[in-house]
């Protein structure tokens, strides 16, 4: 099992040492993160109070108060992200990780963000969803000059409305987002807000996808549709931290989508309401309960629920290929193929050949076979009842009684009360096969489509 330490985030955040202190003398120290684990929520040490979020497999950056202005320092730079245990990807990110650190501020805060470019090309940052002066919106060429490599630019504006936002480059955006440049921005409400409930747990993450050839390390930035790595915050199951809640906690989950397709995010055992988008909190009258919220490309959804059902509940994207690790998309379906007499022949030329897919791909979850280096299985992750047969955009929502209010640690597998788990039927088998209802018409194997007539005479009486 992989290490999941929640409270090491602050310790793991280390000052970057490679930047000249003279050059940076007037700048806030950029804080860097070396770990891809979920960091503890950062309780605000100064400024207006708020209830901090927990960034799944991410962290919140500290800030410096300077004459009443919250100062942050983001460093755009190449990073190596551990996307799954043993699977490392060359990415571009901020302050040591991709996605970059979450920025948490409070409605009305004046914010100054220093952005240092350590990439080999220009960059900018666009503050997705913010109300701000036009010159601070971060579209290179349109609102500002691009930030050249080695330069530091400053953005300054007021966080005017509460909500869930993102930041990402708007300079060679296609490449930079394909390389993982993105981060979350949370503006907490100042005091009580009629549409924003108090919650006990507040989780946030971004959806992103990469195309990394098995055995390679760098995403293919020109890919448009055929991605093979589907992630929450650039992590793939089973490496994604579970969302943990104490029973009856009110839980908010904020999801932003910076991949190139939509993701129906689905929770088991509970229903939720969408309480906010990147446009702000939704009016109460517009909220309806559901168990899947589609998060379209470039959108954010903020959902809330009462964690009243104890257990380990699946929480995932409902596009089934998105809950898979790397896999070939051109592999033909092998289900139902009789391999008798062939495996031995193939083994004559490929001695390590093993039969796969004859009964489906579920076996893959249990098989242990050598793979290309720096990749991870299509489906991995074991549960208390065996292989979970999932990978990619999948994690679990763990609801427990008697959990500490600030305890975000993985509580282990749920122990269901006796008699509440599905079980094998032990009674008599069915006496006879029920008559199968078949559609009228053709026998199996007969051609079912008639060739279109091209005869001119045929067309005459039309």
């Amino acid at each position, binding site marked *: 099992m992989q290490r999941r330490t929640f409270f090491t985030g602050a310790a793991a955040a280390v000052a970057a040492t490679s930047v000249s202190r003279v050059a940076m003398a007037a700048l806030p120290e950029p804080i860097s993160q070396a770990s891809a684990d979920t960091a503890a929520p950062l309780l605000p040490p100064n400024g207006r109070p708020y209830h901090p979020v927990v960034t799944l497999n991410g962290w919140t950056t500290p800030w410096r108060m300077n004459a009443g202005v919250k100062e942050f320092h983001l460093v755009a730079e190449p990073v190596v992200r551990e996307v799954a245990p043993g699977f490392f990807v060359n990415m571009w990110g901020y302050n040591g990780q991709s996605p970059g650190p979450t920025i948490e501020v409070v409605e009305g805060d004046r914010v100054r963000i220093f952005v240092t470019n350590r990439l080999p090309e220009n960059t900018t940052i666009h503050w997705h969803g913010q109300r701000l002066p036009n010159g601070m919106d971060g579209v290179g060429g349109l609102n500002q000059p691009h930030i050249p490599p080695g330069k530091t630019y400053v953005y300054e504006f007021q966080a005017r409305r509460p909500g869930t936002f993102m930041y990402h480059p708007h300079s060679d955006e296609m490449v930079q987002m394909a390389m993982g440049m993105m981060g979350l921005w949370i503006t907490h409400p100042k005091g009580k807000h009629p549409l924003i409930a108090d919650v006990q747990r507040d989780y946030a993450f971004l959806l992103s996808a990469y195309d990394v050839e098995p055995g390679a390390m760098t995403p293919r930035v020109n890919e448009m549709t055929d991605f093979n790595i589907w992630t929450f915050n650039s992590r793939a199951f089973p490496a994604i931290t579970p969302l943990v809640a104490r029973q009856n906690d009110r839980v908010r989950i904020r999801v932003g989508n910076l991949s190139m397709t939509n993701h129906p995010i689905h929770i088991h055992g509970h229903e939720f309401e969408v309480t906010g988008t990147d446009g702000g909190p939704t009016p109460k009258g517009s909220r309806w309960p559901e168990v899947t919220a589609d998060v379209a490309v470039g959108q954010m959804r903020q959902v809330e629920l009462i964690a009243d059902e104890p257990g380990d509940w699946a929480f995932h994207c409902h596009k089934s290929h998105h809950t898979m690790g*790397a896999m*070939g998309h051109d592999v033909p379906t092998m289900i139902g*193929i009789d391999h008798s007499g*062939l495996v031995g022949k193939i083994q004559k030329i*490929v001695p390590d050949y093993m039969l796969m897919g004859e009964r489906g*791909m579920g076996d893959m979850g249990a098989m242990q076979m050598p793979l290309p280096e720096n990749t991870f299985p299509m489906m991995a992750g074991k549960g208390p009842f065996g292989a979970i047969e999932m990978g990619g955009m999948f994690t679990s929502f763990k609801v427990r009684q008697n959990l500490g209010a600030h305890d975000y640690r993985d509580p282990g597998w749920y122990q269901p009360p006796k008699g509440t788990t599905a079980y094998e039927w032990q009674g008599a088998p069915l006496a006879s096969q029920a008559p199968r209802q078949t559609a009228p018409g053709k026998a199996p194997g007969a051609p079912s489509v008639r060739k279109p007539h091209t005869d001119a005479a045929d067309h005459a009486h039309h």
Partner: protein
Amino acid sequence: MASTLTRTTTRLSPLLAALVLAGCASVAPDGLRSAVGEHTEGRLPSQATLADPSPTARAQAQQQIAAWLQQPVDADNAVRIALLNSPALEAQMAALGMQDAQRVQALTLPNPTLTLGRFVNGHEREIERQLSFGLVSLITLPWRARWQGWQMEQATLTAAQQVLLHAADTRRAWLRAVAAQQSLQTAQTMHEAAAAGGELARRMARVGNFSKLEQAQELRVQQEAAAHLARTRLNAALEREQLARLMGLWGPQAGFALPAALPPLPQAEALRGGEDAEATALRERLDLRALRRDLDTTAERHGFARVGAIFGDIGASYSRNTATERGTRHDDVTRGWELDIPLPIFDWGGAASGAARANLQRSAAQLRDTALRARSEARSHWQRYRTAYDLAQQQRSEVLPLAQFMQDEAVYRYNGMFISTWQLLAQARATAQAVATATEAQRDFWLAEVDLQLALTSTSPGATPTLATSAAPATTEQGH
């Protein structure tokens, strides 16, 4: 009396010497096989001998060949068998024997002529006895014996080259046959794999997982593999047949076994250096030696040419004529000798001398030309040998490990369900093809080695072939 005899003997000694020489010129009993053997010494596998046509030797040789054929025939044994058993080589050796017999015949002195005459007239009866013979052939016998000896040596050297070429041909054929057999095994494996892929595709189509088109694509791979197998099989049979022909084998003996693989490449340190190649060729090559002998003969003949042309027909005769007077019965005996000397009035031997001079020039030029070719062949065959080694070594130490790596990676990708069984099989075929290509490179090195040995120590191996492998570039099939 004794002193007279001695004096007479002394006076007659050149004549006697010539007679002795002429008597000694006899046909070599082994048809010059041992003379040829001296030249091939060290240039053939140990204990390789030429066929002896005597029935007992022939039977022994057949026994020996049968024993060699009990186990897989290695290259040296193939050469030994070929030397013992090849009718073509035997024919060449017989021709050499014929040449030897002709030499002996040429050195035998013409028999003296005894002329008897009986003449009668009115008062006397005359009986003439004349013993005559060509003087020049007697006087020049020592030189002619020497020239004929040189010519025979030249013929023996030529025959030795034929033997070495036959041995080299056999060795080449052996290398080709073993390599072709190895390629055949690879082709068989590739075909089996393609057939398994084709069958799997058929079953895929049967349950509806493949379209007919997808099935046809895999079927085409199977058909290509089958055609490749047929061609490879034919090639292996032809190469083997060529070897059997050179070894003089037929019938049940032609079913000999060959080793499963070519000999491994030598270590780089064991390779022959190229620095002394030219010197070695000039020193060792038999074709150069033969031409040198030719030049010797021509040069010496050149000196005699004019004299021979003028005095070629000097004849000597001794006569004893008896005239008997009929009335008195008185015998009158006349003894004496005659010399026939042609007078150089018309032919002063200029044409003969000119022809001899031109012949000498031709011989010298031929020697120079062959020496030039020998030097060039030494260099070019050494370069080919060295390059063939580097190529074969590259195949063995770089290309094959790379192919194996790609094969392993394909298995890993198959394990991760990144590629299909058919893509995996295509990679495996590419790997098998790489093995076949490496085998060809290994064969080419050994072929180049055979040619280099010939070029350095024996004779011209013929045109220098370039290094080329027939292997098609192996590509991995990508997707469907």
